[in-house]
């Protein structure tokens, strides 16, 4: 109890300094949580596009990005005919720009695609989809930023399209995208006769392994992965995750430097007090424990404050209309655990030098100048 009081006393003695230190960790944790959660959410949404009413995705082997994947129409046709397949939907991904909107995601899909079938149509009739080559359906948010309504013509890339429907989906990417008939998308993106992926719905999920083996045997150039496998192995996702953790880690490192600075000041301003403790029998590990304890308290309070601030910030972002559907505030327990652990480790690392310094204080020198 006295030991704990010795730790807390110093934090209370320099409240502003302790507050700044806790705030440093808190903002670092909030930054890490925000960046990681937003990117995890983005990955989840992109995975959601692929796994819409399907459990397997087929794409070109060894491509780094699905935008560069080419799956021939013949493969779509044959795979659709396999008895284990309930439906196989080819999807062509493309990115275009229009005035004021540098990135618009385009989805080339068939009328039977789940995205068309299962979405909530706010305007238009899904039965009209793919009747004409210049028809497009817009996601709700795309309609907003393109200022388009049912029947209007919108410039997208190098062409102008007729809006025959506006639909709403729960997925931010889809909601901000443009749905084209597959054939139109193939012409528009100069990928005649191919799609980026095929999303597969099996009659029986347990046949997934057999399906993957069959694809491997028949198409040396293609690969079939279950949705969870794809999310784990897709290189773009890996890069995004690594970037998120690296950016968050840099934030935490800055917070750790703040803790180190605070702890160094803490030790320097009570050299005499540490000397007194040594004279009264405190061992070097006990002195170090006091310094680490102090930094651990700063880290724990910082982490808790950071989690609160980060969560509030994510909810605030979610309320911004332009980001609607892009931010998922589902904070995974694993992420929480890792963030708290990293905050604690940062605190401990920040206290390492001050603790070593404190252990090396020679009582006799500190007390000589009374």
């Amino acid at each position: 109890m006295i030991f704990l009081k010795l730790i807390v006393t110093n934090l209370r003695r320099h409240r502003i300094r302790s507050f700044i230190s806790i705030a440093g960790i808190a903002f670092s944790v909030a930054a890490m949580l925000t960046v990681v959660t937003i990117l995890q959410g983005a990955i989840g949404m992109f995975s959601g596009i692929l796994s819409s009413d399907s459990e397997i995705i087929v794409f070109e082997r060894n491509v780094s990005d699905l935008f560069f994947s080419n799956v021939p129409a013949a493969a779509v046709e044959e795979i659709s005919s396999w008895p284990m397949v309930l439906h196989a939907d080819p999807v062509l991904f493309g990115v275009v720009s229009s005035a004021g909107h540098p990135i618009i995601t385009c989805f080339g899909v068939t009328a039977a695609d789940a995205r068309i079938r299962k979405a909530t149509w706010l305007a238009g009739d899904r039965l009209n989809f793919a009747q004409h080559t210049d028809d497009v359906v817009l996601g709700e948010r795309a309609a907003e930023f393109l200022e388009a309504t049912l029947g209007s013509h919108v410039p997208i890339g190098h062409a102008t399209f007729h809006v025959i429907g506006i639909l709403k989906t729960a997925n931010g990417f889809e909601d901000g995208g443009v749905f084209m008939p597959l054939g139109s998308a193939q012409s528009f993106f100069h990928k005649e006769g191919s799609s980026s992926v095929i999303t597969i719905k099996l009659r029986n999920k347990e046949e997934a392994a057999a399906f993957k083996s069959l694809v491997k045997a028949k198409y040396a150039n293609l690969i079939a992965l279950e949705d969870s496998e794809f999310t784990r192995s897709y290189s773009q996702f890996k890069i995004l995750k690594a970037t998120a953790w690296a950016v968050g880690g840099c934030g935490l490192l800055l917070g750790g430097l703040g803790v180190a600075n605070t702890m160094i000041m803490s030790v320097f301003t009570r050299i005499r007090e540490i000397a007194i403790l040594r004279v009264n029998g405190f061992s070097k590990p006990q002195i170090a424990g006091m310094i680490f304890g102090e930094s651990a308290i700063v880290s724990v309070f910082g982490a808790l404050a950071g989690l609160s601030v980060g969560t509030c910030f994510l909810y605030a972002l979610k309320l911004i209309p332009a980001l609607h559907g892009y931010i998922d505030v589902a904070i995974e327990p694993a992420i929480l655990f890792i963030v708290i652990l990293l905050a604690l480790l940062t605190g401990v690392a920040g206290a390492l030098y001050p603790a070593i310094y404190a252990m090396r204080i020679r009582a006799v020198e500190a007390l000589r100048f009374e």
Partner: protein
Amino acid sequence: MTLSTVKASNNGRIVIRAEDVWKSYDEGTIAVLKGVDFEAAEGQTVALCGPSGCGKSTLLHLFGGLDEPDRGRISVNNSEVNRHRNLLRLLRHEVGFVFQLHNLIPDLTLAENCFIPTVAAGINRRTAQARLQQLTDRTGLSHRLDHRIQKLSGGERQRTALCRALMNRPKILLADEPTGSLDEQTSAAVFQLLLDVVATEGVTLVMATHDRGLAERCDRVLEMHDGRIHEPVSA
């Protein structure tokens, strides 16, 4: 009479012994102790007198293991000091320090300050509480246990420092000008209390002081100058 070795004058067991102890600072340019020999017996009160800088405090620090001699040997209870294995045991159980400035932690209460040595030594709270009660009863501080140090008078602070030094029942009390920061009246009262407590506890007291009046109330008075203990003024 100049003595190369100052022997304990009674027949008690020797608890502190210094043999040909040398100590200098600033890479040997300032020689403070030049071959000091010293002995103190169990329960004795010994005053070290001498001008500032003569090495009184240095000698006390060496006895307590806070510093190492350049040469020579210091042993406490037949165990050589400055062997790292012994050092913590020495500070926790064998010696207690009282300094000129009380050196208490201002944010803690009187009781919490006194518990510090017991926390260091891992003594359980109940035992520590009983010991604190015993010492504060003797020193007249039992009504001040929960008071912060800032609220205590100079004399009370020094008495608190005395209690803290004796919490783990050390056999030796090393006091460096223990009443140096107090007025004459308080100084006399605190010093009498110090003598009473060490007598009751059977503790050996080695005290550095400028105050010859106080020194002469000890069993032995030793004069230090020029880095040596020169003569026993009283025995």
